[in-house]
């Protein structure tokens, strides 16, 4: 019975095999089952709509429109979130501030990911003294508490960066500074993850197989290993967005963040603690928005982590 017939039987067999779920499908299913992640995603979409959609209803000029007669008005029908110390409408400012906060979160993570992946990949793949050197540097950066480093860097770069024009809008140069410094001070963790991933993946048999095939180092790094470490990078990147938004808020809160007139949720809070009692709406609304955004991103990140984690797969028998 064996011999030639064998291949035919196998082919028949293959018809019986149920279509396995792709890792993508499994990820989606696991993600969707994660109720908080779905909630986070919905929240996030709403917040993005709020920040970017709101821009279609109100102009930036309105966000910066001051009327000293209207200062520190509590929330009302006119100004649902109240007004600030120069009578600007807080609602509109949170819309425009949200854009910058989200932009900072995303862009800082891009910087972080580029740095982290590059350093982690090189260190992990080549090993030896390159690894030693890069990891010492990483460790040195790691040893300084991030907030301290951020503050020092914020001052270092904070001299004066000219304003930039993007998408027809004027951004305070400090936005770029904040993006860069958050990126510069947060890549270390990712670099470690990527390095660890590379260390383990480079011993994986499919990478060895690529070596036996004669594939070049470049394509091994970028075509074999990197696509397979993308899951932890995405997860860590997502959570980093939350951290970057928080970092921005922290440095802005301490007065070293994005400079006015560009509003961010963080710098709207700056000085607001002088009004803890007298004008709580000054800090409650931007504060809540930060919390909501960070919370949503953390939910999504957590969901993603569960979704890409193969341990979450339930095996039978």
């Amino acid at each position, binding site marked *: 019975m064996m011999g030639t017939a064998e291949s035919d039987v196998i082919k028949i067999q293959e018809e019986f095999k149920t279509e396995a779920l792709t890792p993508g499908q499994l990820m989606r299913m696991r993600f969707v089952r994660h109720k908080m992640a779905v909630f986070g995603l919905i929240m996030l979409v709403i917040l993005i709509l709020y920040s970017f959609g709101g821009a279609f209803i109100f102009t930036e000029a309105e966000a*910066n*429109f*001051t009327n*000293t*007669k209207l*200062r*520190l008005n509590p929330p009302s029908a006119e100004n649902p979130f109240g007004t600030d*110390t*120069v*009578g*600007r409408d807080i609602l509109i400012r949170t819309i425009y501030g949200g854009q910058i906060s989200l932009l900072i979160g995303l862009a800082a993570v891009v910087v972080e990911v580029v740095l982290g992946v590059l350093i982690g990949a090189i260190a992990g793949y080549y090993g030896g003294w390159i690894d030693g050197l890069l990891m010492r540097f990483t460790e040195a950066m790691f040893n300084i508490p991030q907030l301290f480093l951020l503050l020092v860097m914020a*001052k270092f770069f*904070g*001299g*004066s960066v000219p*304003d930039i024009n993007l998408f027809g809008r*004027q951004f*305070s*140069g400090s936005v770029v500074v904040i993006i860069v410094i958050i990126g510069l001070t947060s890549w270390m963790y990712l670099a470690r993850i990527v390095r660890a991933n590379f260390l383990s993946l480079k011993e994986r048999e499919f990478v060895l197989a690529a070596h036996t095939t004669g594939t070049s180092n470049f394509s091994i790094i970028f075509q074999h290993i990197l696509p397979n470490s993308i899951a932890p990078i995405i997860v860590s990147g997502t959570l980093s967005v939350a951290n970057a938004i928080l970092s921005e808020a922290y440095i802005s809160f301490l*007065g*070293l963040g994005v*400079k*006015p*007139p560009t509003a961010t949720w963080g710098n709207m809070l700056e*000085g607001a*603690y*002088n*009004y*803890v*009692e*007298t004008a709580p709406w000054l800090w409650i609304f931007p504060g809540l928005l930060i919390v909501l955004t960070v919370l949503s991103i953390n939910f999504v990140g957590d969901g993603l982590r569960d979704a890409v984690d193969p341990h979450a797969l339930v095996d039978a028998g």
Partner: protein
Amino acid sequence: MKIKLWLTLMTILIVFSMVMTSCSPAATPEPAAEQPSAEQPMEEPAAETPMEEAMEPKVVTFAWTQEPDSLHPFYTNMWFSATLQQLYLCWAWEYDDQNIAYPNLVEEIPSVENGGISDDGLTITLTLRDDIVWSDGTPLTSADFKFTYDMLMDDANSVNSKYPYDALTSVEAPDERTVVMNFPEPFAAWEANFWRGILPKHILQPVYDAEGSMMGADWNMNPTVGCGPYVLDEWESGSYMRFTKNENYWKGIAKIDDVFLQFVPDDAAQTAALLAGDADLGTFIPASDVPTFQDAGLTVFTVDSGYAEGWFINFREMASPAIRDVEVRQAIAMALDRQAISDDLLLGLTHPIETLWDPIAGGAYVSPDIVPWEYNPEAAKTKLENAGYVDSDGDGIREDLDGNPLVLVHGTTIREIRQDIQAVAQQQLREIGIDLAIESQDSDIFFGGYADGAPPAIGEQDIMEWSDSTYFPDPDTDYWLCDQLPSEENPYGYNYYGCDEALDALFQAQLVETDPAARQAIFHEITKYMHDNVLWYGIYSDPDLWVVNSNLTGVKFSGVTPFYNIWEWDFAN
């Protein structure tokens, strides 16, 4: 069992830290950790006092938002530190609530009339009182004056500022009560600047002899010997400072026993402390809180201290051509609704001003011919139009004849009210077609030197805003002198505004003019010139605000020496 372990560990650690933090002797003597109940401290003072003395000590508590960096008068220029000097130090002459000088350590203030000043204005002689003593009983003599001068001039001491002593050729102390100051040329601003804080020679000389410098002296941080109505009792970094009355004060012993400075980190905390009655005095309060204080029955004092918040215009060659155009500057001056800023942002506690000299108008240095700039956007627009700035592309921003948009950079330091003003100004200037790009820096960056690339120093900003004063109460200022322009050769120059030969000449002339009337005339010229050319554009007068418990009596403030009569203060009941 594990929980017990945790608890034990925690208790040990807390007790340990407590002991570490509260080991200073002056803390209320309480056996630590034995009675850690929350109500305990409330009863304690009551329980203790009857045994010790019949009356509770009178303590006035200041809420102090910034902790002094040093109590040595020449190692700090921090307002929150210098202000305290009337507590524990003494000046040769001090100023009353009208900012008029009155003699303190000297018999009388030198003048040409009383012979204290030589006719050529090159020699000033002081005669000291004979009853002045340091708080430890040592007499205060001319040697202390001479010592102070010597210390200032010694490079090893790295004092913050040698001004104005570097204008002297020498100081002599021919006898215990005579101090002679020799100038190479007349120095009109002497009164306002000399002998602020005399150093105790008998304390510092040994330190100087031993270390070659007084920088490391314990006295700098812990001036337990002074010549003011109070002496420092203790200073816990980050927390509080306590002054106790000087039993040897020659004017009379202070009525209030202790002055307690509680360092509160921010305005909100200060406001809370004042409202709650936890503090009797606070200062540098946000204007927005003033009505709250008044409602709560606290007294608010507004004291002119010479400071004026204004726009320093950069008319150097690197500045925008537009700002160097006097028409544009005048248009700007008419475009800003300064009254609204004063009324709304500062709650009417202050008023718009025209010149840097407005807050010392008591000296009448401001030209009576000045016509204040009025808020008139239409006139401003016309002015711009006439000067050739029109909005040719319809984006709301005017362009010059070459099509360059009228963009000006406005820079200031990070402070809430300044950022608020920036926001308002940005909008109001936009209404007349000027695009104000605003930026702000931390003050150590903003006020950095030319070599550090500080934005004002290198001329990156067209308009710079901060609050400044003359050598108050003297009208002198040297900001606009041509030889102060910063450059590679002169990196420390601090004329960030520009060289106007005419103005330079006027400023040079006034400083050597010993005749007050003539000097006043020069200043009329200066103020009128600067105002009409908008070389400096005043926003508002920046008085010191003091909030005081209404129960305190005898409270008066001077803009120069705030606590000049603190030894007379008392509680009403």
